[in-house]
């Protein structure tokens, strides 16, 4: 697997896709990753289905529920990721909720993540103070990096602090919103992107939440190093299946 930081250093306009493990079918994880890689996606957010995903909108909630009904669990996810460890070159980022890691055992969880060749975690309900008090040391021990989210309401002081903690990229939440919000990017959002860009942070910036197609992706890339598409992809995948993934990705990156 290519290192995410090498990719971030080398390439601009990065496209990342979020997908839910075990969706649409339990055994689809490896195939979805492979299809995304072939389509030219730069890095992939691997979503761990959770029963109570507070930061996710209806589309990802539904896909998570379906995946859980399919029988997905963390052990199966790690097994699935191990099978593609040698063949997959596209960097993977793991996204899940803190309770999943807590219950699995924090050390065991980190070790498994590392065993799968993954170095980066996104945990939307892990607050900065808990990171400082406990998780920073834990993640350092395993060589894992944590991605922080910033929003239009995050103060400059806090963004600067997040910048110092960031070892891969900052996840710029496009709007004060849960995932899956629709529509074009507003002037207000662009002003916020400009404001963040003008701060000249050391960290790379990836925009997510509300990015769904070519126009929104292109706009996001004007202000950041790339963008993440989640709900729009899940919706497409649910309706069209794995074989058609390329048809979703190609128009966005060409």
């Amino acid at each position: 697997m290519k290192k995410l930081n090498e990719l971030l250093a080398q390439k601009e306009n990065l496209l990342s896709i979020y997908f839910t493990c075990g969706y649409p079918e339990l055994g689809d994880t490896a195939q979805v990753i492979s299809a995304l890689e072939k389509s030219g996606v730069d890095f992939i957010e691997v979503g761990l289905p959770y029963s109570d995903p507070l930061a996710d909108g209806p589309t990802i909630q539904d896909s998570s529920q379906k995946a859980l009904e399919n029988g997905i669990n963390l052990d199966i996810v790690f097994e699935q990721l191990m099978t593609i460890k040698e063949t997959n070159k596209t960097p993977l980022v793991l996204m899940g909720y803190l309770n999943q890691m807590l219950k699995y055992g924090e050390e065991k969880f980190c070790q498994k993540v590392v065993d799968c060749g993954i170095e980066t975690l996104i945990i939307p309900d892990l607050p900065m103070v808990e990171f400082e008090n406990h998780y920073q040391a834990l993640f350092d021990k395993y060589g894992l990096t944590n991605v922080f989210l910033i929003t239009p309401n995050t103060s400059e002081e806090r963004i600067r602090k997040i910048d110092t903690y960031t070892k891969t990229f900052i996840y710029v939440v496009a709007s004060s919103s849960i995932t899956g919000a629709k529509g074009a990017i507003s002037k207000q959002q662009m002003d916020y992107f400009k404001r963040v860009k003008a701060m000249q942070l050391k960290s790379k910036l990836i925009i997510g939440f509300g990015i769904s197609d070519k126009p929104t992706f292109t706009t996001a890339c004007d202000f950041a190093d790339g963008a993440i598409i989640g709900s729009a992809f899940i919706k497409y995948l649910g309706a069209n299946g794995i074989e058609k993934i390329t048809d979703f990705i190609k128009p966005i990156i060409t």
Partner: protein
Amino acid sequence: MKSKFHPDENGYFGQYGGAFIPELLYPNVKELADNYIQIIESEAFQTEYKSLLKDYVGRPTPLYLAKRLSEKYGAHIYLKREDLNHTGAHKVNNTVGQILIAKKLGKTKIIAETGAGQHGVATATVCALMGLECTVFMGEKDIVRQAPNVARMKMLGAKVVPATSGSKTLKDATNEAIRYWIQNPATFYLIGSVVGPHPHPDMVARLQAVISEEMKWQLKEKTGKENPDTIIACVGGGSNAAGAFYHYMEDEAVELIAVEAAGLGVHSGESAATSQLGEVGIIHGSKTILMQDEYGQIQEPYSISAGLDYPGVGPLHAHLYETKRAKFMSATDKEALAAAYELTKIEGIIPALETAHALAVLPKIKFKKDQVVVINLSGRGDKDLEIFIKHLEA
């Protein structure tokens, strides 16, 4: 106040609590955490809060010596009559306080979650009183089983939004309220129990503390002593118990009993007895004890009582449980129904199904002679009549 049972600066009661929230909510929660104590302790707040509790809510609520119940169980059993509050339950103590905090912070739109509908009604009520917009999230299953409260909320001008995800009960209503809050950070989340991210559990406990504050002087008047031997309260999230225990938590001589809903039986797979079935985890932004599977997926609880049908418990209660400061007991659906009928028959008081769980442990306790027991009669049973009638016929 610094003590074992008050949270530290990060909102921890022992190992429980904190604020596990997405960054999107950080500014709101921080604003509240920075201001709530100062607002609550201000003279202006206290004057308005106390005046509303007196003239609008009808406080102090009576502390009633239930003679026939006492005779039956061989103890001096007092009922703290929270059922006589305006809107019919203890919930309004909290909503009156929080609406004043919301106003002080300049918030104009209020959201809330509700299980049995008591908190929803209490929120809709104070929003009507203050002329603020109110949206209440309620599980689809609870909308059916607590229809009278849905009608009351609507009449009070609130918008009731069904939560259709998961178990379609209180947990899911809370998820939906939090999601809405994330999308609309300018709204004030008027949470109904001692759950959620810090400072919500502590704020709600402080606003419910009026229950035990009154108990102290009322007991002094009636028995000559401020302290009872035992206080019994039901626990879903735990707000009425927090209020009834609050001023007695430090005094280890007072026995505190929290009663959870065991549904069809603690180990039947259809239960909400969190302390018995739960393990440490994170729910609704708080580290506490919750019912979950081996992978941390939150389990769907069950209880006949919508207000106790919750897979977690507030972090204060998790701490009271772990430190053994409070004794945790449970009552099944059947035991709660029997207790509700008993109180109705011998004292002429129809309790809420939630409250009936607290009454249901009376036959399980061996009381000493002259033991003074206070049961927090958290709510009245009008909303549950349909369920009572169904079981009466059966």
